[in-house]
């Protein structure tokens, strides 16, 4: 009969109208500024740089300015200049590390390709700005975040990274000790870049993007 389909539709909307007052399935709104989505651990927005020592956020960056992320970044939104001493010797840390978040496409490829676990994805998204030129070009100072912050955002992943780094450090120390013992050579620089870490084994509890071979 003409009209039954219409009545059926009206019943559905009426059910939702009434349901919106008692059924959380039918009232899904989040009152945004007061209530915020619980972001999943994997959520990514823009990259940040991890530093290990909160007292020296710029000096203790894990980044060694190897520019892998710069070259791999699909939209080319990273700009790195390596710091050099007076003689022009590379200091294995960035002097300039800028990310233009007005270009960044949040693809996480920089994180995947970084062999030093130095760049990670931030989850902060409330960054509306009135000035594109001052607000959206993030410098090294703005990008540097502590390891604790990283743990807060991605606890599982960060724990795995920490374990890995500790393992590498131990290995390096062992290697150094082994080297130092037979021939009393001057110790090799301790910077991680001197000895790129091997690709980590996939760990069961913390799936991690494949780390490519070092440059």
């Amino acid at each position: 009969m003409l009209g039954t389909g219409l009545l059926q539709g009206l019943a559905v909307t009426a059910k939702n109208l009434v349901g919106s007052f008692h059924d959380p399935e039918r009232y899904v709104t989040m009152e945004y500024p007061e209530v915020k989505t619980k972001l999943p651990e994997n959520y990514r927005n823009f990259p940040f740089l991890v530093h290990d020592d909160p007292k020296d956020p710029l000096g203790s960056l894990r980044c060694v300015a190897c520019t892998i992320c710069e070259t791999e970044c699909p939209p080319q939104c990273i700009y790195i200049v390596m710091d050099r001493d007076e003689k022009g010797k590379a200091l294995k840390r960035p002097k300039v590390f800028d990310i233009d978040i007005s270009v960044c496409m949040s693809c996480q490829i920089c994180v995947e390709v970084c062999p030093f676990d130095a760049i990670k994805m931030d989850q902060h998204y409330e960054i509306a700005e009135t000035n594109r030129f001052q607000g959206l070009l993030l410098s090294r100072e703005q990008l540097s975040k502590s390891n604790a912050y990283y743990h807060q955002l991605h606890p599982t992943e960060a724990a795995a990274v920490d374990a890995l780094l500790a393992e590498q450090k131990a290995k390096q120390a062992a290697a150094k000790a082994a080297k130092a013992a037979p021939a009393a050579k001057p110790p090799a620089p301790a910077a991680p870049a001197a000895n790129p870490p091997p690709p980590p084994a996939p760990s069961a509890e913390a799936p991690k993007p494949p780390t490519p071979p070092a440059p």
Partner: protein
Amino acid sequence: MTSPAAPSSFPSGLPSSPGAHVRAVHDDFHGDLLEVSMGPHHPSTHGVFRMIVTLDGERIVRLKPVFGYLHRNHEKLGEQTTYLASMPYTDRLDYLNSMTNNWAYAIAVEKLAGQAVPERAEYVRVILAELTRLLNHTCLAGFLLQDTGCSGTPLMYAFREREKILDLFESLSGSRMMCNFQRFGGCRLDPTPEWLAAVRQLVDGYGRFLDEFEALISGNEIVMARTQGTGVLTPALAISAGVTGPMLRATGVDYDLRKVDGYGVYPRFEFRVPLGAHGDTYDRYMIRILEMRESIQILRQALRDLPAGPILDPKAKNRGFRPKPGEAYGRIEGPKGEIGFYLISDGSPNPFRYRVRPPSFVNLTILEDMCLGQTVADAVIILGSIDIVLGEVDR
């Protein structure tokens, strides 16, 4: 009431001989015609699509689509960047279905490089692709109904469900829309058991949502009046015009790449391919609803059979990736139709030629044929039922 339709570029709709393509439109025949340019800013063009419509009263006597308002040089950029760097760009092709775009691209590159994919990754890909299909078809139904003049209600319900799927995508890949999840030789991350449980829960509830959605729409007399018999597409024209996906199957042609090519692990799943009989807008809508019900079946099976193992081939190389010279065309059954990638490698880190075969662009070929003799209101829903995404049409 029907006015004789203007001669289309293809009088029978089908090309026969080169002489048939006379584009002359005898305007004197119709008297005063009104030419309306719909778009690129129009609420129902699903983005920045433009149709130059010539009207006799409200009847369409000519319709010329204009493209390119979202032409963002995807293919050129693809040739300027590495294979891996193109992966996030594929997310932005058909921005509703990043997971299937990723997969199509990954398949093309895997073909190009002869890369194997672990079984677990294949299953995860199927799960993600079918979730994407649910997402796309749900949204399409919502948008289609919005075009017919609903005040947002079906669209809201569709997006309510979409958010649930997006939550899954986000917790797995880190992004709601731009997942960038597939890699050459597998997937980027391994889904956790909790995630799989969440998918299971969603799949279990989806049938109920579809029932309610259909109660609101499928039996609605106004919807039927608007969509049944409008925008009829014949099977012969659909095949000739390269129409694929649910649109093709709505005309009754049985061609589903999941069955035909049997890529991935699809041959292991039991599912049916629904076929329409009329080829009209209602069929195109209903085929999608039925496909969603089949997708739920596939998801159930894939979740049940998901094997253990690595998610990414350990030999796979994504950075510094240089496939041997050669070419490959990889295609999958995307929610909108056949999405394919044609790649030519010259041995360098960048593809020599990077071509996207966009389903919705090719499906638009027959837009004019379907709209001739129909009204403006029909043109809007016919366009809606084609299911286009401009990011893919214009690339």
